[in-house]
């Protein structure tokens, strides 16, 4: 929906720039009118807040007292030079993204390849893997918190059946990070699986058939035919997954609260903490700008890398 609106907006802007059409001519005016409700919401609830964040980030603003003072780049200076916790948070965010993104994409691809075959019950399995995507995030996190208890949790009881003494998943820093990554992957992998499945089904059988006739092995067929044809989908999936992983909040909030020992304290949660527990909106805004830039750099980086490959 948003992409359609943005495309229409782009067409209107290019028409305006090229002056081929009058801004208020019948057809252009209709276009403006059609997209205006969506653009209004987009402007009010996205563009203006994003711009405002840059403004807030150069202030010292206490949300309770509403005192706001212009401090220039002081917040950024403090974040980069005085706040030791910040680098831990960045590290945690990158570990979370670095663990989640490859795992999510690889699993989605394997599932899509498996479920692209024709066998009895394939629709059932597609539904099963997609079901977590439509499950409420809060319910998902809370149920997993119970399942991951040390003694009475379902996961450790299953592990005990095969003689493994499971860890205290959400109370040990390294295991907690592993646990939140895994549960997040299981929650969202279905969406990427469906995207890959759609891409696989759009590949012409002629390519596969031709490669078979040329004697290609299944692995060669995948490596040299299917994988390159999936590249545009992989790019979209990787960008969306990276952005989603850097923005993760609810999952961390409900499962670990950033703990234990700040082991799962990621940037989005840290922003929340500084804003609504420390009441430092200016400082939190500066952190949000850094998250924005980090996300932008990673997204553009992926885009350029793919362009170069192609």
């Amino acid at each position, binding site marked *: 929906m948003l992409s359609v609106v943005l495309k229409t907006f782009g067409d209107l802007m290019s028409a305006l720039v090229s002056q081929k059409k009058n801004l208020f001519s019948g057809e252009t005016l209709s276009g403006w009118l059609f997209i205006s409700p969506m653009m209004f919401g987009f402007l009010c609830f996205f563009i203006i807040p994003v711009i405002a964040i840059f403004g807030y980030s150069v202030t010292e603003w206490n949300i309770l007292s509403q005192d706001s003072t212009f401090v220039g780049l002081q917040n950024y200076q403090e974040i980069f030079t005085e706040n030791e916790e910040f680098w831990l948070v960045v590290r945690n965010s990158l570990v979370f993204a670095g663990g989640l993104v490859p795992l999510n994409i690889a699993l989605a691809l394997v599932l899509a390849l498996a479920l692209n075959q024709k066998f009895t019950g394939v629709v059932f399995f597609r539904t099963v893997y997609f079901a977590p995507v439509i499950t409420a995030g809060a319910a998902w996190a809370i149920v997993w918190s119970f399942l991951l208890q040390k003694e009475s949790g379902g996961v450790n009881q299953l592990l005990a059946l095969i003689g493994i003494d499971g860890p205290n998943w959400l*109370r040990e820093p390294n295991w907690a990070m592993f646990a939140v990554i895994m549960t997040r992957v299981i929650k969202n992998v279905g969406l990427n699986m469906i995207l890959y499945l759609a891409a696989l089904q759009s590949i012409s059988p002629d390519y596969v058939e031709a490669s078979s006739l040329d004697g290609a092995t299944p692995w060669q067929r995948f490596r040299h035919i299917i994988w390159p044809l999936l590249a545009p989908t992989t790019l979209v999936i990787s960008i969306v997954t990276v952005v989603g992983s850097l923005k993760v909040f609810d999952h961390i909030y409900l499962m670990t609260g950033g703990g234990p020992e700040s082991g799962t304290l990621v940037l989005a949660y840290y922003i929340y903490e500084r804003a609504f527990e420390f009441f430092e909106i200016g400082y939190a805004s500066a952190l949000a700008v850094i998250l924005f830039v980090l996300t932008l750099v990673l997204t553009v980086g992926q885009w350029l890398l793919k362009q170069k490959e192609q």
Partner: protein
Amino acid sequence: MIMRFIKLTTAALALGMTAGVSQADDLRFTVWTGSEAHLSMLNEFADGFKATHPNTNITFETIPFADYVQKISLQIGGGNPPDMGWMLEGTAPTFIQSNILADVSDTLQATANYNFEDLSPSAMGLWQKDDAVYGVPFSTSPFVIFYNQSLLDAAGLDNPNELHAKGEWTWGALRDMADTLADAEQGIYGFETMDGQGYDGRVWEVLVPLVRSYGGDVWQGDTCTLNSATAVEAVQVYHDMIFKDQSAVPPGEMGDFFNGKAALTYTQISRASKLDEADFDWGIAPMPSGKAGSAPIIGQAAVVVFKDSPNRALAEEFLAYMTNEAGVARMAEFFPPARASVLGSDAFLNSNSRLTPSAMRIVANEINNGSVMPSHVNMPVIKSATRGTFDKLWKADADIEAVFTEACSRINKQLTRK
């Protein structure tokens, strides 16, 4: 036809405007309880207030305890504060300094028969600044031990009150009792921390009672004293209960006293309502003594009015109504009062149908001798800044002194921060 349409439209508009004029006043009152019994009692107040203010509708909005301060702050920051609400003692200094609570002194003084002097000065300490009054405590609720009498009977042990009567009710005795009553095969623990949140949202409620009963405190003046030898010794007792005895519900587990899954816990008496359907006998007792003797802790909460409430005058009236003598006596069923007249009355001893008069006497004694939890202007920041550090306590090989030293370095920064 057109005239008819115009008439109908103007009539509808007029009706709408009239409705606007006679529209009811809505008060939004935030609380952190979701208990039906509590909400039912609060709604009684709303109904009672309606008798004199027929156009007033009061809505009690439950916000989970762990998120309460954050959500209220967000609402305030977003320009949509509640009209009034509950406020914990720990956050009072921050909110008062931020100038977002209404000074209700004029309204209280102007309310007939309010008897302001009856409110205990020690209970009002946090809520008064010079002549201004920023809240009225509705609950000065001491921490008390809840014990499962059925399990004690089965094990043939004296209950905590019997030990208290003999002068033997100490943290050491509690530890032994928990160790005896823990039954791993039945999934029953000996002891559960306050509301099962002692490793997360209520870690301070675990540390403070222990440390104070051993003669220490978390800070004195602007200096953190949590890393003192007495504090370390005190917390070691609880640490041993978790990891040596394995009698306390460990981190990452759930063992609810109120469902019979733990033999002992401590919390406030408002939780007694959770035992209405308990299939075991239970009782309450004073907190155990430490090396420095008894050090009861009082958790305090007040009703406040937010300064930017659009219905501030009405909210202040409702506050006065809720906290007058009759109101406080009614609330005493769940929330021990800050009014001396109510606390010392027979009515108070009989106010809670779930607790016997002797149990209520324990509550009254703990209130009289207790001290409130630590509070500071930067308390929310102190809690956030030490959360990750305190997580390090809950490991079998934790170095408690090192953890407290790290916590103190964080706390000291906030104690001196303006």
